[in-house]
């Protein structure tokens, strides 16, 4: 890289960094308003195609790990499907998508001994892979069983030639992982709006996670539950809304809509 070009590049980076770190020129009400992101899954719209699960795996570098990979399959599905296998499911008989609930009173956050699981200012339950010690206490504590342990190092099975998504870190063996509500997409969206000196709009978030984007029936909606005008808040107020295991007091932020039998 030539000197003028390098100088220009560095000045651009410095300018962007200054813009991000300072609140100058940024709408004042944005900094003071806490966001609380959540998801609404309309089971009446869901066609049970499984596209959300596949999109999630591709986006977040969750490689398929089945019987062919090793004798004891310990598959990882950030977006899994709950079906009424043994008894009546609160989500109906057909397989229903079930990501991490990003609980407001998350037991996994409380029990993590080293702060590897924490709540972000946006209300997401996030995980620092590098800090995780692999004690698996969070897996036992999660009443929704939405956490997965990496029993081996990630290996792409033959046939998957695409390179992993560079925006999402690969998790090593010995750490626990889970759905992040595509936190990387959320951060880049917020940053893009901030650099443009604009407030993020509800439309920016609605189909933001990979699962919501891939859903052909638009059954998954994402957004700020603290914004009374957002679509996700409107849907959450529906009389069809229900939350899984609400009686446990975990306050899950994934809300299901289920009305028709």
């Amino acid at each position, binding site marked *: 890289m030539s000197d003028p070009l390098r100088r220009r590049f560095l000045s651009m980076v410095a300018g962007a960094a200054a813009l991000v770190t300072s609140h100058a020129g940024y709408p004042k009400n944005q900094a003071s308003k806490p966001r609380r992101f959540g998801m609404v899954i309309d089971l009446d719209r869901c066609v049970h195609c499984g596209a959300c699960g596949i999109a999630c795996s591709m986006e977040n570098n969750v490689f398929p790990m089945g019987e062919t990979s090793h004798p004891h399959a310990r598959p990882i599905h950030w977006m899994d499907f709950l079906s009424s296998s043994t008894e009546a499911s609160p989500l109906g008989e057909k397989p229903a998508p079930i990501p991490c609930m990003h609980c407001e009173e998350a037991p996994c956050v409380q029990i993590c001994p080293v702060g590897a699981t924490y709540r972000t200012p946006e209300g997401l339950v996030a995980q620092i892979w590098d800090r995780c010690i*692999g004690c698996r206490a969070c897996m036992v504590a999660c009443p929704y069983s939405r956490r997965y342990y990496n029993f081996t190092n990630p290996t792409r099975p033959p046939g998957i030639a695409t390179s992993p998504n560079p925006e999402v870190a690969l998790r090593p063996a010995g750490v626990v992982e889970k759905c992040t509500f595509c936190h990387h997409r959320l951060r880049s969206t917020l940053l893009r709006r901030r650099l443009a000196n604009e407030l993020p709009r509800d439309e920016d978030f609605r189909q933001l996670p990979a699962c919501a984007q891939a859903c052909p029936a638009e059954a998954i909606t994402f957004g700020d539950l603290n914004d009374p005008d957002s679509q996700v808040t409107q849907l959450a107020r529906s009389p069809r809304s229900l939350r899984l295991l609400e009686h446990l007091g975990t306050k899950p932020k994934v809300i299901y809509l289920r009305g028709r039998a």
Partner: protein
Amino acid sequence: MRSSRWRVGLAVLLLLSLTGVGGWAYLQQLKLGDISTGLGTVGQGGVAWGLYVVLDGYYLCAGFVLMVAACLARFMANPDAEAFARIAMPVAITAFLAAGLSILVDQGRPLVAMDHLLRTARPGSPMFYTFVLLGAVCLYGNLVHCILARRADLAAFAQKPSFWQPLQKALAFGYRGTLSERLRRATCARAMSIGMLFPLTGILVAIATIFVVRPARPWLPTSLELASFFVLALSGGLGLLAGAAWLVIRLGAPGSGPSEAGFGRLGRALLLCSALSLFFVVAKTLVGVLSSEPAVHRHGLALVTGDYAFLFWTEVGGFFLGTIGLALLLWRQAWTPGKVVLLGLVLQIAVFMDRFLALVGWQTHGHSLPYLPGYYLPTRNEIAVALGILALAVLLLLPAVRLIPFAPLAYEPVLPAGSNLVRDWRRRLITWGWMGMGVVLLGVGFLSSARVGTLPSQDPILPGSPILVIVGLMTIVTTGAIYEWLPDRRKG
């Protein structure tokens, strides 16, 4: 004597082999990842915590009971109680060491775990208390307590030339057996015995929380499970004590272990614990099977008639056999050490089964959501690692037994009537000052770790605060040594 040496040599060889196999198995686990274990994903038919955590709970409970028994024995001026206490202390330390190793091999990233726990552990998690108290109190504190209790014996052993003589001399340095030293020993033994009970209870509560508290389990099954956890801890610990005492009698010098009457008293305590254990196991299972809560009902059925029926009925059979056997011994007044140990061993198996089922069964059958039930059995690799840990812990116990043999030389339970400690302000000042330093370190470390009033997931204010907590606790338990080791002031 030669026969005894031959047996000890064979035992050492066996322990070394087991340690070697366990070490190799653990290397495999590190190399391949936890794929070499039988663990899986909760909700998909697997368990996140398996044999290692079961053993951690088992060893911690056994160590707790042994240590409490040793502490309580200090208040009884009884040779049998003293003999049991002498045996219980090193066995408890061995159990705590095995517990620590068991939890370490369970970590996905053991080196990272040691680093991150020491730097950023948070008191909001029960794991904090497990590792902090295990390191500072259960291992270090008990070691201090054990050495101080045997210091008079160490001084006597140090008179005879042996390989261990320099270390024995160092540990008994300055001890003359004067009346004031014996009085200080009695005061310190009482203070440490009472003081140690609090952190020991703390670690038992922490491990009980890990074993018993489960999402969506209602209060009645939880309460019964909790009561059962504590009672079974007593059964396991006293059974282990009986086994250890029997080994000491068989392999140790004459007069090392308790008498038959002592075994009789231990047998009666075991009978009570065994009967209570049986009651609680039956009660909690009945409550589970009859529960209207789907998860609790499913778990209860899995135990009684489902996947875990064989293990469950082995457990019930163990407690039943133990209770009946011990009741018969009581009826006939035939408390022989061999019979008590045999029934204690049966109880150990039953306690282990209960710990296994309590931890594993709930993960595979206690889901709050309608996931498919699963099953868990440890792999050969896990069993080899677990046996290796046990063998290593016992191997480390052997030099300790050579350093401080179980046979007492200087046991004088009764102090002369009317003897009182002379007030020594210098000793008091130094002792309280030392303890105050420990309390300050503990307080600063704890408050920095806990960050009261802030988010629970935040890092400690001072990096490495858990180390401060550990050092503070270690300083506090060292107070006993400071109090006893400070020499008397010379008159004039």
